[in-house]
């Protein structure tokens, strides 16, 4: 009986409520329904103004030629120009060398260090902290530290003295050495990140799965190939993409250490872009370089994900 009366009284109430809604209430209801979207508007605006606006502007710049009298639309001419621009083509080669060697060494060295850390070594916490120090320094600070070390008669010359017989190597002033010096600095700075990510991955391999492989008769090498690597696959792809993209855009380190010299030996794309834009005031071609670099990075990253056949977040 009680439930009957309840339902009789409740039903009309609901009907009344829905028909009596004033326009103010309707507006409030609309806000209530769409609140989640409204809340994101500031973030969307900031994201748009910081990311998409400059990107669109760069696209626009790359189709214009800058003259003292103003800008002229030139279509794809800037891009065509790039193909015959010796400095740009050289910067591509320099960047490819830089990225290839730096990321390759960082990955192999980082993986090895992560494997060592993953063993039950003493004072692991201390090693972890020490390893992370280079990563938390700003690129400018790192550039300055290493410039001091690379200076003639500096620390590295002192260390290398037994091999060089005391002669200065010219770490960042010798054309054949400078790029490798910049690469060494990058390796010093970014190997820790690889260690950090892969070490976390190694820690996540469940003990019982490794033990099951031991019981199944797998050798150390087989366990690494069949259990550890597949487990780390998505992290490996992730860290390679992060490092690849970052290395392609390297600027601050080169700027502080060598400014792209000596004689373009360390003139990476970003450096060339900077020079073209701010030294030669050729914003059109610099923007074309920027857009080309963006496309290159996108293609590389996507093909990487595809080759490795990785689904993130699965």
């Amino acid at each position, binding site marked *: 009986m009680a439930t009957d009366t309840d339902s009789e009284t409740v039903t009309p109430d609901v009907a009344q409520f829905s028909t009596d809604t004033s326009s103010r209430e309707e507006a409030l209801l609309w806000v209530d329904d769409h609140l989640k979207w409204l809340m994101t508007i500031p973030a969307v605006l900031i994201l748009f103004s910081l990311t998409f606006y400059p990107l669109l502007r760069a696209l626009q710049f790359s189709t214009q030629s800058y003259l003292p009298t103003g800008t002229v639309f030139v279509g794809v001419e800037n891009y065509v120009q790039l193909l015959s621009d010796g400095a740009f083509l050289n910067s591509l080669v320099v960047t490819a060398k830089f990225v290839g060697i730096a990321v390759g060494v960082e990955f192999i060295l980082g993986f090895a260090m992560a494997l060592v850390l993953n063993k039950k070594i003493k004072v692991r916490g201390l090693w972890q902290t020490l390893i992370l120090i280079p990563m938390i320094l700003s690129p400018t600070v790192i550039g300055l530290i290493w410039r001091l070390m690379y200076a003639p008669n500096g620390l590295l010359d002192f260390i290398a003295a037994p091999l060089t017989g005391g002669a200065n190597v010219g770490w960042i002033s010798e054309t054949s050495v400078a790029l490798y010096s910049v690469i060494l600095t990058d390796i010093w700075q970014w190997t820790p990140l690889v260690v950090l990510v892969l070490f976390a991955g190694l820690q996540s391999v*469940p003990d*019982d*799965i490794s*033990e*099951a*492989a*031991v*019981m*199944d*008769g*797998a*050798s150390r090498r*087989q366990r690494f190939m*069949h*259990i550890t690597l*597949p*487990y780390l*696959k998505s992290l490996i792809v992730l860290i390679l993409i992060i490092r690849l993209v970052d290395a392609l855009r390297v600027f601050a380190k080169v700027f502080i250490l060598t400014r792209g010299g000596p004689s373009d030996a360390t003139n990476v794309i970003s450096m060339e872009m900077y020079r073209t834009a701010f030294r030669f005031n050729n914003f059109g071609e610099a923007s074309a370089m920027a857009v080309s670099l963006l496309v290159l990075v996108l293609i590389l990253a996507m093909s990487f994900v595809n080759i490795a056949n990785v689904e993130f977040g699965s």
Partner: protein
Amino acid sequence: MVTVEYESVKKAYGETIAIEDIDLEVDDGEFTILLGPSGCGKTTTLRCLAGLTEPTSGTITLDGHDVTNVHPKNRNIAMVFQNFALYPHMTVRENIGYPLKVADVGKEERENRIEQVAETLEIPELLDRDIANLSGGQQQRVALGRAIIRRPAVFLMDEPLANLDAKLKISMRSRIKVLQREMDITTLYVTHDQEEAMSLGDKLVVMDKGHIQQIGTPDEVYHQPVNQFVAGFIGSPSMNFVEVSHSDGQIQAENAPEDFDVTLDDAVVKRYSGTDEMTLGVRPQYFSIHTEETANAVEAEVEVTEPQGDEQIVEVAAGDVSLTVVAPSTIDTTRGDTVWLTLEDELVHGFDPETGDRIGDPEEMVATTRASSSAGSQS
């Protein structure tokens, strides 16, 4: 043909001793259960044999060969883990075939044996599925398949049924038993579930605090527990323990001398002659409950009744002594009722209150065993 022998095996982690004085022989083809509460060292004992844990001292032999320092992969031992430990990035087929793959068995033979094992475990239709898409029971079978495909000398199982639901547990239990019998492989099996242990094992090894408490057949550990721990751990509901004083067959509970005051049968009294104080152990099944006053009975008040279908568990209090009794469901009693409990006195146990050891040697318990076996089959 493989026997396993532990000789005074000990494993310590710094100051903490995980297992000590482990002496154990497992015969060829025997199904041995390591049973005990969590933290008792049963898994450590198993891992020492697997080679995943290195004993601090002592030796482990397989067929007379000392394997204490032999690498796990050279021991020809297979193991099933509690969470199955299947390789998540491989299919069922790859998981089962993995031991053969790393042993460089040819692809054709490998495929044949995978098919065979899948037939045995009734999972041929699952072979090309991903591990992530399997139910717990199916994963369990894959784990078993991966363990048996190599035809190992010894089979180790670490709580393999712990992650399955109750119904599946019982069906997998009988499957494992049949499989073990058919393959005739020496097996060590770890569990904390005494019911599982009793139903599977040829031999039970009851452990507590890193030591073996008793080794025996399921019947022996149930009916002739060597100490109070084994008596309390085996059997469900647990055995009742009452501190009693004893003189000339007269037994009185120390906490309730008036309510718990019974005279034991002469044959039983002999066992406890010369003992003034002891801990009396009575299984809940070996009390008879009466709703009318009965001679030589414990008078008690019913606190709770838990119907279990054809029987009920009745919690009673005799003075300050709480007792658990299993009674037929035909007995009509409820909270607050006064009941009288008689003991099947030849089935009681006496334990030393200090050491917990059983009083009276097994020879004198023979009559008890026979009587209790029949009582056991009745219940």
